[in-house]
């Protein structure tokens, strides 16, 4: 198993009147569900913590798009907490997280995902949380070799050390492949009843889920973070390039999840609603952006992000007409509105499909 002998294999876990308390990082996926459940099985009082960075995939787009509104929706972290019967503390880390995205010490993964820095950050926040709330240790669902950057044999110790959690960080699913942590050494938990999972296979987790009676759990295909998505990363990189600096506000990263994004000129971008749900969502930004919509035909709400002159507005109006039901008409009336309430109507010829180059799409 490879642990260093500080732990007494024959130690008997003595039940205490006050159970030890652990906070489990709950993503909403299977691994953290199982890790928390393993702790409950050992009599540990577990509460969950979930960090909201602004990039979490959790249901945003599904709630915005009308076609998805009738599908059952749930926040998987809350659902996991319900399955486990534990409290869940959802923590807004949007502001603090910006520095992780913009300046990751350990760099990015395949896209703009700073996975290792992200895990260090979240465990560091959990370390602060257990101090403030009188908890004993931290639990994660990490498994050696499960993720290419943040869950490797050489990076798991980095997470423990740089977060300041050190030996108060227990990974129940792969603990027997790691040196004993304080909860094991002190006998708060029984190391022999922990697991030695490793690698990318999900079979051991699925078998353990069956043993615990979990049959319905989230299996996100692309992780739980928009930053792992190539298309999203392209749009974020474009945002930074257009501003000449790497910064963002929450509204920026929300808008990257909505609509078609086209950059017809270097100094402005259009966000084109794809259907009623998105149009309604974009309407909330009317006081921040120049915006257009067709009045002679049904069509999208379009936000203009950037400084534009009259030629740019005409181009934006022709693109708006292109995405309206008047795309084949000779002329489409498009209303142009400014954030300060100014309004005018332009009659424009819709841009032909062949005149919208692929390079404009982000």
């Amino acid at each position, binding site marked *: 198993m490879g642990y260093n002998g500080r732990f007494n294999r024959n130690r008997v876990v003595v039940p205490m009147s006050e159970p030890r308390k652990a906070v489990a990082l709950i993503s909403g996926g299977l691994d953290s569900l199982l890790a928390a459940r393993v702790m409950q099985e050992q009599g540990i009082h577990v509460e969950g913590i*979930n960090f909201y960075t602004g990039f979490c995939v959790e249901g945003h787009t599904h709630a915005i798009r009308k076609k998805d509104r009738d599908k059952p929706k749930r926040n998987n972290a809350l659902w996991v907490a319900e399955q486990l019967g534990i409290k869940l503390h959802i923590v807004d880390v949007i502001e603090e997280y910006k520095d992780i995205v913009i300046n990751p010490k350990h760099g990015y993964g395949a896209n703009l995902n700073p996975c290792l820095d992200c895990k260090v950050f979240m465990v560091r926040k959990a370390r602060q949380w257990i101090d403030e709330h009188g908890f004993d240790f931290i639990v994660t669902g990490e498994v050696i070799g499960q993720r290419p950057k943040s869950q490797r044999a050489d990076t798991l110790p980095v997470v423990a050390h740089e977060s300041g959690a050190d030996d108060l960080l227990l990974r129940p699913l792969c603990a027997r492949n790691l040196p004993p942590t304080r909860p094991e050494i002190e006998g708060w938990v029984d190391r022999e009843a922990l697991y030695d999972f490793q690698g990318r296979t999900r079979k051991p987790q699925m078998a353990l889920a069956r043993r615990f009676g979990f049959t319905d759990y989230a299996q996100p295909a692309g992780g739980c973070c928009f930053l792992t998505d190539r298309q999203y990363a392209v749009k974020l990189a474009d945002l930074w390039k257009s501003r000449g600096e790497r910064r963002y506000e929450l509204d920026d990263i929300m808008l990257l999840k909505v609509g078609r994004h086209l950059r017809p000129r270097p100094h402005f971008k259009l966000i084109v609603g794809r259907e009623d749900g998105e149009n309604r969502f974009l309407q909330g930004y009317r006081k921040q952006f120049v915006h257009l919509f067709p009045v002679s035909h049904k069509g999208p709400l379009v936000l203009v992000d950037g400084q534009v002159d009259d030629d740019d507005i005409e181009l934006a109006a022709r693109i708006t007409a292109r995405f309206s039901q008047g795309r084949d008409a000779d002329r489409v009336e498009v209303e142009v509105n400014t954030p300060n309430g100014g309004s005018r109507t332009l009659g424009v010829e819709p841009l032909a499909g062949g005149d919208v180059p692929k390079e404009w799409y982000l």
Partner: protein
Amino acid sequence: MTRVQLDARRLLCPLPVIRTQERVEGMAAGDVVEVLCTDPGARHDIPAWCRVNGHQVIDIEERGDELVITVQVGEAT
């Protein structure tokens, strides 16, 4: 008993849940928060958050595109 309103309109889940959680902190058992939301996801998420944290949803009202979710603070705050 205190009764307060929380404006979570235009916020996407889980932010309405987080704002509710922040508002409930420090309130007494029996106090009531009326959460105004526009994200349909809040209809599921706020009740789920209440269930796991010991609070109670006492009413959900639709007002056009808006939802008013009324939460009564539980003992476990």
